């Protein structure tokens, strides 16, 4: 009896210990993942921060007035201090990384001093301007090196925990990509002593005046919505259709229609209940090698817009991503570009099919506007621009500013060195509404390593 009892107790204890051990193991793993995640976050934040610093210094180079230069420099200062704190969170204590930190510090010092100074009375001297230019170039080097490390980290799933281990054990000759990468970044630094996520000029926030909320058109039924969707998307051999209604959290009610066809392609489309306006649609299928040029695809996109009676639009931007072309059209009224009225069209380059449209911004914002005559002439507005910028193109445009108002601007596209800048000058009072460095194509890092 006693023996059986002992066996039971002991085996229970064994099972209990096992369970406890498993729990501990699970907790330990969770904590490890947590620690790894915060390292990863600090690292990716750092590279993102350096990206921003580089772009923002670039933008200050093209600025002219104190009104926009001071806040921009203050922003550089903010970004450098953030990047600095990101460096501090990485397990690099055992790695000499002080030169990079010093570099960040020197950008921070310079931008702070320049930002708090009255630049109206005491504008940047030529030397200071040259220094800023120098910082811009140096930050490009560091950005490039960090991006390479980041690419390796993402490609090979590298762990910061391993870096910590490698550094702690101080094994000579250990091949650790992160450590090597950071050493290169450091070498590059040795020689030297808030983001708007918009693909369009102007601010991305929604205008208060949303036309879809005020839409009073007659509601359509689910059946009608499906018919309209089929006509709009023009998908062949559809074999399954699902329709759902929007929930209560939406600003206005809409139908979501999901179609699949025999070849495994799928199409999703959202359509307003009132009036049945297609908000956006997207087709997912394998797109083969390009058989059309970007220009042919552009014509297909224009054809699509005409067929669906979306009027008063001009091409703003076209970009090829592998096998698809993405085209952004913006509104035009009396020869003035209306940036808030944007439509995006995605065209497959294998057969010219329109595989996606995003028209929500257009539907929300498009209306006949009362456009005021600009108070300034073009040449008056041009005087507000930094004389170092070589102006290539200019036009009138309406943008949303950061106060969420539509304003009429002179839009200047100009070059400074090899970079292109967009400068928006308020047509009423000459305020620099936005100065932005336009990104260049990025090298493919796979080839560089």
């Amino acid at each position, binding site marked *: 009896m006693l023996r059986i009892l002992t066996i039971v107790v002991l085996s229970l204890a064994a099972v209990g210990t096992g369970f406890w051990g498993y729990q501990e193991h699970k907790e330990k793993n969770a904590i490890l*993942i*947590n620690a790894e*995640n*915060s390292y*990863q*976050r600090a*690292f*990716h*934040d750092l*590279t*993102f921060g350096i990206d921003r610093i580089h772009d923002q210094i670039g933008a200050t180079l093209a600025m002219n007035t104190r009104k926009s230069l001071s806040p921009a420099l203050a922003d550089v200062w903010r970004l450098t201090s953030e990047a600095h704190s990101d460096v501090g969170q990485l397990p690099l204590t055992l790695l000499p990384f002080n030169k990079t930190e010093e570099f960040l510090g020197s950008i921070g010092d310079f931008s702070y001093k320049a930002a708090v100074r009255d630049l109206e009375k005491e504008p940047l001297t030529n030397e200071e301007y040259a220094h800023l230019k120098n910082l811009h170039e140096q930050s490009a080097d560091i950005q490039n090196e960090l*991006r390479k490390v*980041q*690419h390796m980290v*993402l490609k090979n*799933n590298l762990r910061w925990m391993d870096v910590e281990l490698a550094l702690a054990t101080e094994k000579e000759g250990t091949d650790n990509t992160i450590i090597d990468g950071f050493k290169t970044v450091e070498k590059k630094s040795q020689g030297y002593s808030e983001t708007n*996520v*918009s*693909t369009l000029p102007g601010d*991305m926030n*929604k205008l208060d005046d949303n036309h879809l909320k005020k839409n009073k058109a007659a509601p359509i039924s689910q059946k009608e919505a499906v018919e309209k969707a089929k006509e709009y998307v023009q998908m062949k051999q559809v074999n399954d259709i699902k329709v759902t209604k*929007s*929930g*209560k*959290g939406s600003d206005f009610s809409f139908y*979501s229609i999901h179609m699949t066809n025999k070849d495994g392609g*799928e199409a*999703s489309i*959202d359509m307003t209940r009132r009036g049945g306006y297609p908000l*956006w649609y*997207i087709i*997912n299928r394998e797109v083969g090698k390009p058989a059309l*040029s*970007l*220009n042919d695809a552009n014509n297909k996109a224009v054809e699509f817009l005409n067929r669906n009676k979306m009027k008063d639009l001009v091409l703003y*931007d*076209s*970009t*090829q*991503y592998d096998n698809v072309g*993405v085209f*952004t059209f913006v509104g035009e009224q009396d020869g003035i570009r209306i940036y808030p009225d944007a439509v*995006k069209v*995605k065209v497959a380059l294998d057969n010219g099919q329109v595989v996606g449209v*995003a028209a*929500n*911004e257009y539907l929300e914002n498009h209306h006949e506007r009362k456009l005021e005559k600009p108070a300034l002439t073009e040449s008056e507005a041009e005087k507000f621009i930094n004389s170092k910028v070589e102006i*290539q*193109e200019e036009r009138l445009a309406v943008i949303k500013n950061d106060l969420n108002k539509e304003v009429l601007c002179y839009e200047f596209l100009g*070059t400074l060195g*090899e970079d*292109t800048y967009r400068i928006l000058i308020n047509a009423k009072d000459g305020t620099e509404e936005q100065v932005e460095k336009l*990104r*260049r*194509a*990025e*090298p*493919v890092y*796979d*080839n560089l390593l």
Partner: protein
Amino acid sequence: MRIRPKMKRTAVTIAFVISLVTGSLSIMPEPSHAFSGQVIQKGASGDDVIELQARLQYIGYYKGKIDGVYGWGTYWAVRNFQEAFGLPIDGLVGATTKNKLVKASKYDKSYVKSQIEKGRSFTHYGKQSKQAKNKAGSSGNKPMATSVPPGFSQNDIQLMANAVHGEARGEPYEGQVAVAAVILNRMQSQSFPNTVSGVIFEPRAFTAVADGQIWLTPNETSKRAVLDAINGWDPTGDALYYFNPDTATSAWIWTRPQIKKIGKHIFCN
């Protein structure tokens, strides 16, 4: 009959001239129809763009890298060329612009290509000398540069693709675009961090991050979904949250106003 010898002489001269012309033609390094038939537009990439950049660099209009992507630098070069040669200034490289350019410049395709393959980036491809600086450029037949949406790097896109794959693989495509759109909506929102990594690694924000699934290798579909979201497709109607009603443990999430359901996820404000 006095005409005859003269004719003979003329015939000989003509034959000689013809042979000279054809001879010199065959010596000439490039055929005049080197470009393909396409109208080259800003945003395009490929061999035609390499040729375009090389030719424009040869006559001093283009000063950037020959990277095969028709970006801003190339655009200004084309426009300035069109202006100087009395063509309509539209940045579109059609038949007329190509012909003018071919006449005005030289393009040694095999030379440029071989330099690119050796991993050199040109700083100058022009009249004085064929110089190439020995600096990392690219290798093989792979593209040297790629278009990225403004404000995002390839690595940002990769990181987002990781998150989308970890969170929404097996969901319909729309659902994957939607997850990417939520990350972007959070970046825009005042109540969340402003960076891709800040949003993704925010503690307790995404389950795939908490359990390590974010480090699974993402497939091409999730990358496509991220690009679509960045380029402006938002299937969620500006949602900031989403959850799986079958596995959600938080009661709070049910109190959020729901916008719509895609696949297994409910998206809300």
